[in-house]
């Protein structure tokens, strides 16, 4: 442990004496202090948080992420290139400890920077909140500077319905009956799911939100309903009248209202307390008063939000997840630096980062089932070969990165969503232990096995 800490201290000292630390600190302080001043917000609580958390914290993370990659690529590869690593490797310290010591040093640097930036941001939020109107202050403290839990609507088991629909269709349609059962069932399932999500024009549907596990926590506490829908056709003004009945006769309380909501955008509607029935469910009746069919996606179409944590703890957990990502980036850089020169290691690491940021696009390609556009006119075998090569690779990339990118602390913080302890430990496990651990193991293995000298003294 002593040797790991000694090497970590050496890394810290190098960062300070090469003035990297001071340059980063000044850059981050400028971002944190100047960006909120330069970008004017619209006077709303959401606008304020968007600037302070979404823009500023994102900018801080981008700068820290790039510098972490650059520093971690250099801290080992430069030592190997200029042969100073030889002085370390001939000492009684296993090579994996040398690698780990460097990683710990970078972790300390990131921890310090993130803590300072987070503290300043928190202070700025408190200070700037004082300049809002009373109404917006209430929104800020009740809806945004909180950690709100989310209960999504229940997804019913449609297997029976799918089976029935399939049989019915197969009976009435010979072409459908001729399809392979798997393909036909999949088609029917998508149809049934789409049907289930949709509230047709001038009709109503009831959805259930199961809050039994948090019934005690939300008792006597006001709730919020978040709605997001996709209209079948776009209204010119993008405004859709909707009637809501939340709660039912079995609930202690219920709420009725008619509102006009925009499409394809999440909207929050305040609800009173005690809307749960005896089973801990909340019934939400959507009355579509417009002439368009409205589709409420299963994951974010209908959600009930409830107060779960305070902002401070939520903010700390969000910063922790950012720190986990920075730790993963430093593991990537260090591992690349064990067998590549500094420029090449930097290039490889940045490429991986770009690929990671493109997983949304890659997922779309996988959903389409082909890389080439539909308008591609070339021979069929070209499309087959290209898809045969790229699609499995894309599946692996999405699979690997989704484990890491499935967390969005900045979005959660700016929208007042809670980051639970479960989210934090899951992030720690997936990002640091599994993904970071695998990359670290690879880096340590390469570093242990490789020769660190050549015939000449310089590589």
């Amino acid at each position, binding site marked *: 442990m002593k040797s790991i800490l000694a090497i970590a201290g050496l890394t810290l000292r190098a960062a300070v004496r*090469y003035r990297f630390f001071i340059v980063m600190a000044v850059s981050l302080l400028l971002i944190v202090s100047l960006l909120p001043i330069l970008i004017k917000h619209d006077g709303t609580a959401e606008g304020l948080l968007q600037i302070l958390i979404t823009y500023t914290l994102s900018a801080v993370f981008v700068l820290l992420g790039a510098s972490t990659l650059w520093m971690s690529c250099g801290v080992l590869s430069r030592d190997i290139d200029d042969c100073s690593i030889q*002085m370390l490797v*001939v*000492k009684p*310290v296993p090579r994996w400890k040398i690698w780990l010591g460097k990683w710990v040093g970078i972790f300390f640097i990131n921890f310090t920077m993130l803590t300072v930036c987070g503290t300043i941001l928190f202070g700025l939020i408190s200070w700037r909140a004082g300049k809002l109107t009373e109404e917006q202050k209430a929104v800020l403290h009740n809806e945004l500077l909180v950690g709100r839990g989310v209960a999504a609507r229940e997804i019913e088991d449609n297997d029976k319905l799918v089976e029935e629909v399939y049989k019915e269709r197969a009976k009435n349609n010979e072409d459908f009956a001729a399809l392979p059962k798997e393909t036909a069932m999949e088609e029917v399932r998508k149809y049934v799911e789409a049907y289930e999500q949709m509230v047709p024009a001038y009709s109503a549907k009831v959805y259930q939100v199961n809050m039994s596990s948090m019934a005690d926590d939300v008792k006597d506490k006001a709730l919020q309903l978040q709605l997001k829908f996709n209209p079948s056709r776009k209204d010119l003004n993008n405004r859709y009248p909707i009637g809501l009945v939340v709660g039912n006769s079995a609930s202690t309380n219920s709420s009725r209202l008619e509102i006009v909501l925009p499409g394809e955008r999440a909207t929050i509607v305040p609800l009173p307390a005690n809307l749960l029935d005896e089973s801990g469910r909340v019934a939400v009746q959507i009355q579509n008063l417009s002439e368009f069919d409205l589709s409420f996606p299963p994951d974010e179409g209908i959600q009930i939000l409830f107060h779960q944590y305070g902002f401070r703890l939520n903010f700390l957990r969000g910063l922790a997840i950012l720190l986990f990502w920075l730790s993963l980036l430093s593991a990537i850089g260090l591992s690349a630096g064990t067998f590549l020169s500094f420029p090449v290691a930097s290039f490889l690491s940045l490429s991986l980062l770009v690929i990671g940021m493109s997983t949304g696009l890659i997922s779309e390609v996988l959903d389409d089932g082909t890389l080439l556009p539909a308008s591609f006119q070339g021979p069929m075998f070209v499309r087959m070969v290209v898809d045969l090569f790229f699609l499995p690779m894309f599946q692996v990339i999405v699979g690997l990165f989704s484990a890491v990118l499935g967390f969005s602390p900045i979005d959660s913080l700016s929208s007042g969503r809670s980051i639970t302890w479960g989210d934090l430990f899951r992030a720690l496990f997936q990002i640091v232990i599994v993904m970071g651990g695998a990359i670290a193991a690879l880096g340590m293995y390469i570093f242990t096995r490789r020769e660190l000298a050549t015939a000449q003294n310089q590589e």
Partner: protein
Amino acid sequence: MSTVLDQISDKEPEAAAASRSSDEDVVVAVRGLTKVFKDFWGRPKAKAVNNVNFEVRRGEVLGLLGPNGSGKSTTIKMLLGLLYPTKGHIEVFGKSPRHVGTKSRIGYLPEESYLYRYLSSEETLKFFGSLFQLENKDRERRIEQLIEMVGLKNATNRMVGEFSKGMQRRIGLAQALINDPDLVILDEPTSGMDPIGCREIKDLVLALAKRGKTVILSSHLLADVEDVCDRVVIYYGGQVRAMGTLKELLKEPDTLQITTPVLPKATTEKVLEIIRADIGDGTVRLDNPTQNLESYFLNVVRQARETEETSGATSGSEVAAYLRGDGTASKEANQSDKVLDRLTREKGHDPLAAAKAKPSEPEAPTVDHARLDALASVSAAPALSTEATKESGKSEEDLSEADEKLSSLLGGEKKDEEGK
């Protein structure tokens, strides 16, 4: 005369060899060592080391000699686990060079300075010392002694990046010794050092060897190797071309060397006549000895040191106490050995072998009385020219210098005792 003849006989190397009994530990064993450097595609590029075999025993000073690119540094790097052999086998303290625990017994000074430029000399030693699991107090004490020893007391807080090459070599040497290693590997240790520094390093190597440490020394400078090594291995083209003790390798069995004080001209002619009568005219040479440049330089600097200050590296410091050994008895023995060593050292004489061959016997029987008399006389005339006489000239200066050193050592010891 008989005493002189004894000195040039083969008795001592044989005695030294005899003293190395089979139960002495083999510290480094190299068998069939081959290293082939390959390119990115795995094609052989260069055979740097080719089927090298040697052993290094405990307490031995082994010199690796050879021209540039002969494989010396490659061999050293394989001993340290920085490179892996293509073929063959290496054992260091009975284990693979990559064994982590063994490295706590090794000290390494590379050919170039690979130290961290942003650390000061004290921080450098603190950092490397912390990797050896030393107690903080022990580490601090050693750092203080090492900085004193390498003459960098005035530059403790300066960054290594600001040092001259020689100063960097000094701090490099210090970090190689922080753990009081049993095996010290020095790659061109005197490179970039001034002559005083070279002398001090050589004295240090001898001091380490006297304590039973093993030293492997790679150098281009033959004089340095000749001064300190017990055995040498001569490389060329990655292969060992010659190996053995200096005495064995350098002996010229077909010539004889006689050392006398200055003789009257008539006596000289008589001696030459007798010799020429036997072997003819052409092969006898007669001239006056000269002192070597190192001795002259040391003398000049010693005189200058008495009157001038310097901001660079200083010299004349003692070997660090923990490297010398801490016992009073051994200290006294070391001091006596040092004085007698200087008095009796001549070219080709192997002081280490002598010390090992007769560990408990006084050195008096091997002392050259004639030379001692010459040194003790008030007006010593220059002796007849031989290289051995060169050494006696050096010994006169060494005696006074040794006296000085002895006083300072004894004075230092008294201070230590008072301190306790």
